[in-house]
């Protein structure tokens, strides 16, 4: 069997990280094909349920990426996201899932290179953790 390729779902905000990911493409910076992007207008839109469902339905890791603190297009959405994210980490730990499977990052519209770096890092991290098996849908 070939090497484990993790399946990672990324929620990117439209204004910073999605645009940053676009810039990564425009500048032809390469990164592993492990991440699939769901565009939301703001990371504040990311419901904790989305993270749980992603992990439950086959993702090995989840990335949430938005504007840098203080630079949110909607003023404070990324702060809401960060607060929810910390709670999510606690919850995952509580239900026995390594909280390192979820990650939050700040990537601005001008940080194409950083986006590629983040994806490469997340991919490496999740590879080390291996496939997520303990959280099949029958458990919930």
């Amino acid at each position, binding site marked *: 069997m070939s090497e484990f390729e993790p399946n990672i779902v990324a929620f990117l905000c439209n204004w910073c990280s*999605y645009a940053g990911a676009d810039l*990564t*493409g425009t500048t032809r910076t390469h990164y592993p094909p492990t991440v699939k992007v769901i565009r939301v*207008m703001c990371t504040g*839109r990311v419901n904790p349920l989305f993270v749980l469902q992603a992990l439950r339905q*086959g993702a090995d890791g989840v990335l949430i990426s938005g504007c840098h603190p*203080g630079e949110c297009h909607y003023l404070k959405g990324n702060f*809401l996201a960060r607060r929810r994210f910390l709670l999510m980490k606690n919850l995952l730990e509580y239900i026995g899932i390594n909280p390192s499977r979820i990650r939050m990052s700040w990537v601005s519209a*001008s940080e194409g290179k950083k986006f*590629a770096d983040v994806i490469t890092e997340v991919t490496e991290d999740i590879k080390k953790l291996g496939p997520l098996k303990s959280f099949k849908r029958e458990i919930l």
Partner: protein
Amino acid sequence: MSKTRVGVYICHCGVNIKSTVDVTKLTEFASKLPHVSVAKDYIYLCSDPGQELIKNDINEFNLNRIVVAACSPRMHEPTFRKALRSAGINPYCLEIANIREHCSWVHEDIEKATKKAESILAATVAKASLLEPLEEKEVDVIPTALVLGGGIAGIQAALDIADTGFKVYLVEKDPSIGGHMMQLDKTFPTLDCSACILTPKMSDVGNHPNIELLTYSEITNVGGYVGNFKVTIKKKPRYIIEDKCNGCGNCISYCPIEMPDPFNLNLSKTKCLYIPFPQAVPACFVIDPDYCRYTLNRECKQCEPVCKELGAIDLKQKEQFIEVDVGTIIVATGFDTFDPTLKPELGYGLYPNVITGLEFERLSSASGPTTGDVMINGKKPKNVVFIHCVGSRDKTVGNEYCSRVCCMYTAKQAHLIKDKIPDAKVTVFYIDVRAFGKGFEEFYDRVKQEGIIYRRGNVAEVYKRGEKLVVKAEDTLLGQLVEVETDLVVLAVGMVPRADSNTVNNLLKLSQSSDKFLLEAHPKLRPVDTASDGIFLAGCCQGPKDIPDTVAQASAAASKACIPLSQGKVRTEAQVAQVNDLLCRGCGFCVEVCPYDAIELKPTVIAGETVDVASVNEVLCKGCGACVAACLSGAIQQKSFTDEQLLSMIASLGESYE
């Protein structure tokens, strides 16, 4: 609603997508996805024939949802929405799968990239089949613009908008408009007198019936959205009543306090009751509260009685807050010059005869502290060294960019030295000479012809030897160290973003590019737009540029800002939040998280009982979705980003790897 019929269109983007993603395989994969009635690939979907293809299929196959797998939705979503509208279906029944920026351009392995494109596409189709048609509302545009910054960019933009027939508020933080251009002596490459070409425009601004000039003012709050911005402006007290002051200046001699003259970059003194420069607009005096003995200690007051007749002096003036409603905003906040103390090896701040290029402009200007004689310690310099690229192209100070004006302003200043002191020896140390503009190379040739020595080398150090300064560098063309003794060193400092730019950027929610200048919406095709609708950029706040480029950009920004003003209407965000009254439990969590105060709890009759139910003001809602994530009962949903739609994508992405 009728049965869901999805059409999937896959773009080759020439070879941009096709070379990494197997489009034939992808099309075949798409045709088997649920609800898909037709799947096709095409070389350039954004082309007219590409759009025609989609439009024809909509009619032929009776499609009601369209998925386009192509470049980023940030590129062509508007294009395809228009195509849908013209084919008679709701433009919001479109979803874009980004298989270029997020797939073909960032991966190399065709098999893996194709597989990833498949899962992106499947998730997009899953969401698309759940999309609902949306309605766009239109609101009236307030036919007024606000221009922030009264340098040449702001002046030009304000004049253009005002001449088009709209009212403009021009807000300037200093007591007079004019900006950096007013401080310059001559301009390259034509050697026009900077003030002479600027002051007519300044007086046009002062006299224009459509321009309301707010000098010595700053914005403190910005609310609203394109067409309906509400801006709060703080008018700092100038302790002179603008309408009453006629600029006669009788008061000056009575003011006992001297302070460094900011217009002359502290190279000379002025009274603390002063007019920035003779041609100031408005021609009104100002009192600096940091120096005035009355504002500091409540003593003195010697000026007040002098102006008895006009009664223009009011030492008790307080700051004022003004609220204005405008349809569009132009940001023209300009630049600061690089602070050369960050390059300690060049000795700025240590040796008084090391000066910046802008300081040289004041020394050279007839309106400057030496009335145009270039003098250092009361003597005319015999040897002058210019140093290029100070604070530009330099990672040690975090400025990687070229400031674009320094090569030419140095050439001009070298010429001015030769003009004023013909026997002076002038040496310019450069790394590269970038003479790229109209007339620039010719001017560079002319300056060299005048006997100015250009030596290639990035100056390493400036130090003292007796009375003289020594400039040490490697002349890289000789491959030798050289020491040039000199009386005056002029540093060609570059441009940096305004020190206080973060305040303005945060108020207007503007992003910066990695050089910390303001980020345009698209580097090539939307160079004066920002990511915020209705806010435009002009001049050096967006990046270093010379006067012609600034004026051109200002006119561009003005015409862009006039579009909504002339149309009179703008469409509001359609992808707003929506409440299902029956599910809402009235907890108010959504009200708390909404950054725009767009949600309130309203008593509503549900099943015969009056209960609190959240209600969204669709004009205020910007569609961020924070309320949706906060809602515990799923009662509030963001149109086109509903829980159901996003969960369908999540499920699809998960399954694709099971």
